[in-house]
């Protein structure tokens, strides 16, 4: 088995063992979760180092035959594999999944109330981590499908079990939205595999050119077929179906409503995990299959994508400005960032695609960091509402300082990951859609407006009414340092030395848009 397969197997095993633990043994579950997270991080570092010399192509692949659907296509069998591997596009995002899952596990394990539903907490987090890591590691469509579903179910249970108040209903919203999303996504992707084999076109031409139905993702990515094999109409519909799925999965306006509903009530480590990586799966699938398999459709629907991107940027920004508390602000800020992601993809340029990839990482890191820190404020002061906060800098200087760092990253300050992602996206979008890009620039101003407003209300000024409660509350605790330092360091690392990601994303962007410029 390859290293990448182990990154899925280890948390999966930890989860499966946890199922059979007695409920009282939550300490064991906790230890299992932490150890398995640490092991996956080590694996990610190994893959990173071993593959660095040759970023292109798939790395650390492994494939186990799973089952075969006999006589499925033109008389041949379809072999379904349990196969894993990463390439220049997925490797950094797969690493992000591992990092965010590990940080979430740490945060879940060090929360004051970690014994509360301790077994379920680690069970679902382990399974969810295996799922979300698997989404980025899968190189077989069926494996991908299973990983998507595992992520969905785990996310549902985590939100359902670890939310306060009305937010439990939000778990159902998440399930319906993301459940439907996965139906659309998988149908679209399987449809693409089917189309590439000639299913919608001239089957004899397809047979002559050697096109076969396969679930193997690297093979799919290398298939080139002409319009007679895969008609443009079918491509368009499949792309739109994929896009619909991505919008629900990714929580993009107007199909985003599950996201603020969930984050309004979930515990901070759940929000960290959801905002940090689970909401990035849709973006990855759009790049992998939308741009990877149907690059012509990205160009064809570019204007639509661009408009939707700008709508998301501005809607997200204004909704974040109108937010009354941190949870909603961070949620809509993340939606606004992913709007820029769409605009970058829409440009169908290498710079835009590279910016879009950077944005996945940057938005993941910053959303996770901000959810965690805002949760820290809430845990101490008892509220996350701006009208009750104020003056935190004097009693909680470290927490305030890191919160400011996160906010500055999210507003795209240079030397943080936010800036380098944004400028690359704009470098692409200004080439293709200069008019839309000028409008999108408003997002840069608005992000400064809402984030600095939030900072002013939270950390600056005179102590707010809620601050009385913090007298005696400790600044960052030892356990909190771990997520905060790791995430901040990553945000700064990408910002100061972007080649660390560019090393992978540059060839990935070049390979992605074979037809684009």
């Amino acid at each position, binding site marked *: 088995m390859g290293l990448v397969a182990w990154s899925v197997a280890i948390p999966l095993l930890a989860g499966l063992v946890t199922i059979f633990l007695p409920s009282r043994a939550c300490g064991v579950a906790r230890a299992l979760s932490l150890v398995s997270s640490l092991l996956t991080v080590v694996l990610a570092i190994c893959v990173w180092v071993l593959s660095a010399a040759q970023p292109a192509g798939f790395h650390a692949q492994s494939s186990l035959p799973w089952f075969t659907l006999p006589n499925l296509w033109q008389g041949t069998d379809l072999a379904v594999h349990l196969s894993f591997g990463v390439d220049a596009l997925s490797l950094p995002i797969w690493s992000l999944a591992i990092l965010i899952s590990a940080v979430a596990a740490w945060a879940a394990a060090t929360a004051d109330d970690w014994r509360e539903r301790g077994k379920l907490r680690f069970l679902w987090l382990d399974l969810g981590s295996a799922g979300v890591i698997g989404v980025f590691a899968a190189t077989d469509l069926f494996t991908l499908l299973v990983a998507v579903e595992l992520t969905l179910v785990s996310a549902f249970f985590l939100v359902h079990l670890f939310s306060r108040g009305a937010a439990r209903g939000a778990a159902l919203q998440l*399930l319906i939205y993301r459940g439907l999303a996965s139906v659309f996504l998988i149908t679209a992707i399987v449809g693409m595999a089917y189309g590439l084999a000639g299913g919608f076109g001239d089957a004899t031409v397809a047979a002559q050119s050697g096109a076969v139905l396969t679930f193997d993702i690297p093979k799919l990515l290398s298939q080139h077929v002409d319009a007679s094999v895969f008609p443009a109409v079918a491509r368009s519909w499949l792309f739109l179906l994929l896009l619909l799925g991505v919008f629900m999965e990714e929580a993009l306006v107007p199909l985003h409503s599950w996201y603020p509903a969930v984050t309004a009530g979930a515990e901070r480590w759940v929000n960290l995990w959801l905002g940090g990586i689970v909401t990035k799966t849709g973006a990855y699938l759009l790049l992998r299959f939308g741009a990877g398999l149907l690059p012509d459709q990205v160009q064809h629907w570019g204007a639509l994508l661009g408009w939707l991107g700008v709508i998301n940027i501005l809607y997200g920004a204004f*909704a974040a400005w109108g937010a*009354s508390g941190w949870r909603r602000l961070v949620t809509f800020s993340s939606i606004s960032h992913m709007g820029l992601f769409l605009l970058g993809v829409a440009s169908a340029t290498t710079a835009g695609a590279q910016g879009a990839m950077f944005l996945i990482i940057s938005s993941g890191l910053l959303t996770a960091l901000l959810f965690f820190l805002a949760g820290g404020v809430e845990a101490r002061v008892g509220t996350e509402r701006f009208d009750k906060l104020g003056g935190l800098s004097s009693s909680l200087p470290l927490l305030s300082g890191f919160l400011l760092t996160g906010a500055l990253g999210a507003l795209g300050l240079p030397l943080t990951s936010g800036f380098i992602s944004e400028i690359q996206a704009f470098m692409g979008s200004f080439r293709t859609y200069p008019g839309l890009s000028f409008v999108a620039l408003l997002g840069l101003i608005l992000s400064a407006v809402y984030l600095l407003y939030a900072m002013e209300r939270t950390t600056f000024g005179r102590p707010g009414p809620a601050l009385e409660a913090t007298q005696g509350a400790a600044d960052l605790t030892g356990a909190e340092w771990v997520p905060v330092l790791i995430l901040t360091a990553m945000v700064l690392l990408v910002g100061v030395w972007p080649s660390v990601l560019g090393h992978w994303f540059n060839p990935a962007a070049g390979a992605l848009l074979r037809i684009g410029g």
Partner: protein
Amino acid sequence: MVWWIPGFPLIAFAITLLVGRRLAEPVVAGIAVMATLISFVLSTILLLHPGTPGAVTQLDWLTVGQTHIGFGMQTSHLNALMAFVVSLVSTLVLLYSRGYMAGDERFSVYYQYLNLFVFSMLGLVLSANLLELYIFWEMVGLCSYLLVGFWFFKPEAALAAKKSFIVTRIGDTGLFAGIVLLWLASGSFNFDAVFQAAQSPGFGLGWLSGSGLITLVAILVFLGAVGKSAQFPLHVWLPDAMEGPTPVSALIHAATMVAAGVYLVARMFPLFALSHAALTTVAWIGGVTALLAALIALTQRDIKRVIAYSTVSQLGYMMMALGAGAYAYGVFHLFTHAFFKALLFLTAGSVIHALGGEQDLFKMGGLAGKLPITRWTFLAAALALAGIFPLSGFWSKDAILTALLAGGHGILYAVGLITAFCTAFYIFRLYFLAFAGTPRDEALYAHAHEGGWVMTVPQVVLGVLAVMAGWWNTPIGGHPIERYLLGDAGTSFFAGTSAGDIGHVYPENVLWMVISLVVALAGIGLAAWMYGARADQRAAAAASAAGPLYRVSLRKFYLDEIYESSVVRAGKWLARIADGLDRFVIQSIVYLASRMTYAAGWGLRLLQTGQVQTYGVVAALGLFVLIAIAMLRGGVM
């Protein structure tokens, strides 16, 4: 060696960031001053031996598509002069701060921010490409934000910090777009490649090309300068930024960061020189700013705000010079202004320090005897600002006025003269109110005293510079600074330009010199008449005689109110709409949809029993069915 110029302040920043809280005040300040002093020495060496202008040392930073972006240092005469000014003023202000900030509980944090600022500012003026310049451009903005809000517990400081960042960001967004468009049209972020591409006949993008694109890009870049250098209509942040500690005002909001906009236009001058429309815009924005700010400064009561508006006005002067094509004169004024304006703030800080934080001019008076060093150094700076022969400001201001008149900008020359009159008036109004006459508040006066040597030495050094810095560019010496700066022309720093492109040189005219001197003296005379020792109630009488004009000036032409009731209100309104829309409209649609699903679907009703495990099963099953259908169809065909 060039790397070490910003390198030492960066090291000082790292030390104060990591262990600053545990170090004693003199150690923290000592590290910072030493690091900056080394930078100053290195900058001086660079100034004397700038090497080949345009020489670049850089590292690979990122590859985007086919574009390799570097990160490095570029030297030239302009950059060396800027590094010299920045490191010199920084050293003096860091030393002064030792006294001014003594005892502040966040003393080490203050130095930490200032070290970061000095690093960023030096990086900015030595940047090897546009993207890097933008990075440092935003970093100095960050430092400004942190330092304006340094006393974060004051609500005014918190608001001012936010305002300064957001208003400058509006301009920065223009610069951002300009840089991206220049990259698209030239394929590079490097200055020489950009300049060469702009001069080539094929310069353009699909939707705009040639001179139209050059004008658009130049104006976008200038928008960045408008924000950073507090030019009309984005000048409103700078006076509020006076909420920061006064040494910060001296360094960041007078001598260095706010001059970065002028540096930017100078750095991009070959681009501006290609567009008459862009240059005209620069000149007129500069002119309007110079006059507007000077008119506002006439009536302000707060000692720091008067000087802040003066800064805005003088930056407008520099922009006027650049817009009129007098590149070297604009930079020369930046050079002299850095010293006398930093000194005005340091002396104002000394006054505020002596009066226990009082900034209202109408509670001061008679301080000349109590604060002799401050008084004499302030007087030197005020005379330099007013443009009195032979102090530094005289030479640079007069050069600009000469260039305006000789260049055929008659109206702007008149604007410059009126501004010069106002400038002389408001700065001597301040002088007479603070230092002359009798104390207006005896209690404050009784406690007034000079700060220690750490505060007076920087004042004296700057005082000497305020007097003499202009002598470096007199007709007698043959305009050494001009010749020095024009040495960049035609090199890879200003690729494809000749000396004529980047700077017209105008002969001095003694008559014009006398006119501007007389105007300045008239301003001082009026100030003495209205606010001098025997002025009685003349100022009050003049204010009531001026009526609405006085109020317009006092209320800063109501620009803050206009912005508040238009842009800001519209934005807040949209934010509220978006929030409401999201909370109620979209949420209720979702709610309705889910209710309808419940009513219709027996499957989902089953799930309501609480058997949550079945959700996953149902979701997965649905997929299997879909895949099976797809497979089946594939098999049949």
